[in-house]
């Protein structure tokens, strides 16, 4: 019963999020994110009806929807790349290479495995494993992205910050719960389901608050010279810290 209440609350919040996205014209600004939310809304809404109607095809479609939403969740990371890192050519370059490499590898594995999967139970087993691995990859990417953002002092607007916080907390909690479920076993199933639903509801609430209206990203004041300046900058800074480190090590040995 509690599960059904949370489920219907989730569908309502998704609908509200989509409504605000249309009203505030956020759909056009963050299309990848809203495609993800739309997919969640359609799958949750339709599956809710199928569950109530006790349709036989419910199980099958829930796995398909799970796969689709798992993949579309990357839309949030894409929005961060598009809106924040695009202003910082150097940081964006690193993040793009690493992300596409990891995403591509995981996706290839999923497609090849599905092609050779013998039956439905294999798809279930694949989903559980793939969900864990894919979430792991996304968590590593998001963690790396947050480190880059923090290291280079990149600032973000309320909209993108909300997207990352909402998705990130779901990702972190789901990953921990998945690991515990694999270790504890079926006894953990009810806790796992409740934890997943509650964190998802929390994510929707965070998104709704932060994406109520458009909030632009802070524009960095930059005035850079020619590309050759980077080599000069890097070389000089490197000389500086190298010399200073050597001297300080000597000082500490005194």
């Amino acid at each position, binding site marked *: 019963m509690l599960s059904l209440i949370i489920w219907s609350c989730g569908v309502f919040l998704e609908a509200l999020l989509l409504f605000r996205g249309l009203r505030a014209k956020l759909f056009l600004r963050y299309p990848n994110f809203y495609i993800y939310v739309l997919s969640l809304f359609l799958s949750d809404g339709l599956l809710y009806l199928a569950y109530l109607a006790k349709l036989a095809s419910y199980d099958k479609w829930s796995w398909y929807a799970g796969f689709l939403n798992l993949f579309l969740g990357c839309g949030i990371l894409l929005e961060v790349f598009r809106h924040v890192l695009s202003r910082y050519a150097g940081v964006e370059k690193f993040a793009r290479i690493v992300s596409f490499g990891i995403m591509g590898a995981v996706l290839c594995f999923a497609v090849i495995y599905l092609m050779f999967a013998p039956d439905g139970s294999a798809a279930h087993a694949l989903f559980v494993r793939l969900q864990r691995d894919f979430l792991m990859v996304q968590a590593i990417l998001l963690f790396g992205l947050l480190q880059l953002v923090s290291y280079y002092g990149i600032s973000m607007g309320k909209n993108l910050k909300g997207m990352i916080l909402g998705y990130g907390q779901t990702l972190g909690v789901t990953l921990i719960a998945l690991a515990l479920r694999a270790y504890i076993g079926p006894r953990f199933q009810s806790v796992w389901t409740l934890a997943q639903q509650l964190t998802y509801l929390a994510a929707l609430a965070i998104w709704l608050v932060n994406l109520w209206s458009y909030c632009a990203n802070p524009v960095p004041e930059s005035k850079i010279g020619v590309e050759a300046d980077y080599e*000069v900058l890097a070389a000089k800074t490197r000389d500086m810290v*190298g010399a200073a480190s050597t001297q300080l090590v000597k000082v500490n040995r005194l």
Partner: protein
Amino acid sequence: MIQLISFLVIGALLLVSLYSFARSSNRAEGGSGAMVQAKHALNALQAGLLPPELVGRIFSREDLEYVESETSEEIRELFMEERKKVALFWVSRVRKQVLSLKRFHLGSARFYARLSLRTELALAVDFATLLFACRALQVFLYLRGPYAAPGIVGSTAATAARVCKISEKSLSFLTPAYAGTVGDRATRPARP
């Protein structure tokens, strides 16, 4: 078991990162303001913190000898306490200005498409080592006092002076005309 631990660790690390991310400010950094700040840091190091006569005066043994010969034990202890505070304050200021220079490098480097991963990683390690060395020096001064190893002070000042000299070259592309421009922009009120 290893898999379980790795999943738990990554999940926990992500949640901790998100917490600090949520607490971070939305201030745009690395623009003209950061360049001016870096220039100020350099000036502060060169003019305010590192002149040999100033450093020599702060850590002068003559003062200690005078206090030891002319005053009571209580005054000597008070003097040592005060000198230790001054020495620690001096190192912390030097460290703070080096941090400012680091922020300047990061604020500038992130805009370049030809940013080199290897160079940036090496620099990150170098900066971390330098800042750690400064911290170690602070601990040393705290534990052994300002007069325990007179060579340390001179060497530190020389090191910081060297840092300044090379930083000055690093900031050389801030030509007088451009530095003036960014200085003017930095003093203007922020745009809404």
